[in-house]
């Protein structure tokens, strides 16, 4: 079956819902949100801890509560969200092919497409950790799903590799639900998780955090029986003689999130090797006209509030594209300078008359430092911050008049 829609949004998590709401508010009615899971809400559904929404709603919500606000709003507006529907491919001319039990195989010609597929976790295979391939090794998110959405415990004695937020949150979850968490092991000399989580998920429960350490071997023929942990040197290679051994039945991996851009690839959307997400301009339009990207599929965020904010912008821009009103004109490129990785957006339109927010990750910890935006030799923006860490997305805002005055490519740097 082939049909047409002005706007197709791929993904019904916080990014897709926010984008849909924004586009609807701009008058787009002929739209659909396609969600592969049985419920909208995305990964927030399994993030039952609180701490979401402080920026957007001025209060701390749990994941399901945050998600429900957007679900309720979409419902109230009448936005069609079709669950249990998997998008199989997307073409450069914006034909979305998808399949569901209810509607079978379909192709939808879309006026515009918003990519909001989120991200996935780096699995064990990508780490190359040697040893056996036993049961008991899960990504933190898979374990979170088992506990929070299915009501099952994946193990009793746990070691966590990686100190990403999901890993830290799962350290507390597993402890509270009756498991013993022996250690959290982080390859880098700093944690990539939020401080609040290190305090409230590890320190509160006396779970040791081993920085500059890694798991060097996993043992157990059928189920995991233990892991070897070694300290690593500055080259991140294990230091001989530093091995300690933890007997455990579970290893949870929290070793990074990867934007899930398989569909973007089918549409030949240009991807950034740094963010693993699409290369976009300040309207969040990708290299393929009419295809926009927002949320964790664009770059991995720490805070859902920023996902929503970014996705509202994508929704407005896609609506403008559908109406033929999306401004285009002179652009400048945004480059990563010293201390900066993965600035988004990668290009700016200079003649929109709008403020622009640049987001990036520092490549290391910088204390009492500043982020600077340089246009050639000229400093066009600067913001001081007490601490920059790779675990926390940093931002710098450019006022509309500054953007209008950009006459060459700009560079963002931290130091």
């Amino acid at each position, binding site marked *: 079956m082939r049909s047409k829609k002005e706007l197709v949004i791929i993904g019904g998590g916080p990014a897709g819902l926010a984008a849909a709401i924004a586009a609807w508010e701009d008058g787009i009615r002929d739209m659909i949100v396609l969600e592969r899971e049985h419920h909208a809400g995305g990964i927030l559904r399994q993030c039952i801890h609180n701490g979401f929404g402080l920026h957007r709603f001025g209060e701390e919500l749990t994941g399901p509560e945050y998600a429900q606000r957007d679900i309720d709003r979409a419902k109230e507006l009448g936005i069609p969200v079709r669950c249990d529907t998997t998008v199989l491919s997307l073409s450069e001319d914006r034909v979305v092919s998808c399949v569901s039990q209810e509607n079978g195989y379909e192709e939808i010609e879309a006026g515009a497409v918003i990519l909001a597929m989120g991200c996935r976790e780096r699995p064990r295979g990508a780490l190359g950790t040697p040893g056996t391939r036993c049961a008991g090794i899960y990504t933190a998110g898979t374990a979170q799903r088992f506990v929070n959405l299915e*009501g099952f415990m994946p193990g009793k004695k746990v070691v966590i590799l990686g100190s990403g937020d999901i890993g830290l949150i799962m350290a507390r979850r597993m402890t509270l639900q009756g498991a013993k968490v022996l250690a959290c092991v982080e390859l880098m000399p700093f944690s990539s998780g939020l401080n*609040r989580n290190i305090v409230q998920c590890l320190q509160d429960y006396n779970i040791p955090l081993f920085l500059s350490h890694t798991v060097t071997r996993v043992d157990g023929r059928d189920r995991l029986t233990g892991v070897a942990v070694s300290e690593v040197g500055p080259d991140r290679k294990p230091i001989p003689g530093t091995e300690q051994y933890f007997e455990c039945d579970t290893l949870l991996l929290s070793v990074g999130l990867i934007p899930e851009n398989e569909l973007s690839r089918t549409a030949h959307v240009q991807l950034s090797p740094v963010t693993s997400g699409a290369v976009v301009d300040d309207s969040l339009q990708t290299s393929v006209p009419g295809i926009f990207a927002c949320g964790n599929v664009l770059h991995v965020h720490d805070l859902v509030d920023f996902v929503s904010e970014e996705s509202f912008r994508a929704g407005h821009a896609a609506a403008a594209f559908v109406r033929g009103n999306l401004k285009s004109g002179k652009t400048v490129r945004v480059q990563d300078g010293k201390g900066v990785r993965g600035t988004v957006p990668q290009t700016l339109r200079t003649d929109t008359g709008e403020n622009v927010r640049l987001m990036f990750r520092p490549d290391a910890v910088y204390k009492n430092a500043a982020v600077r935006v340089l246009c050639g030799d000229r400093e066009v923006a600067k913001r001081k911050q007490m601490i920059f860490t790779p675990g926390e997305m940093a931002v710098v805002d450019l006022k509309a008049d500054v953007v209008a005055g950009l006459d060459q490519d700009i560079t963002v740097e931290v130091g």
Partner: protein
Amino acid sequence: MTEERVITCINCPMGCRMTVTLEDGAVVKVTGNTCKRGDTYAHQECTMPVRMVTAVVPVEGSRMPLSVKTKSPIPKAMIPKCMEELANVRLTAPVQAGQTVVADVCGTGIDVIATRSIA
């Protein structure tokens, strides 16, 4: 008796590292914070630490367990008792988000409520 404690502020992603000076258990000085909320948190954390508790509890008639939270933070020391009370909760579907699951948990005066609905 004077005591110094270094704690990490958790109010926002800044995560200010604060040095708190206590005399006989009372906070007399806080440094390292960038805003008023840090100061308030330091007082709270060093005298009467509190935490939100979130968990899941089984619901009869539902495959999916119910996610719950304390309506507001409870004393940190009460967390294990709170979980014990939650282990004894017996619920049956349907449950509405916001519905009280345990009233006055551990005598804190704070209710545990559902954070999603289960049909």
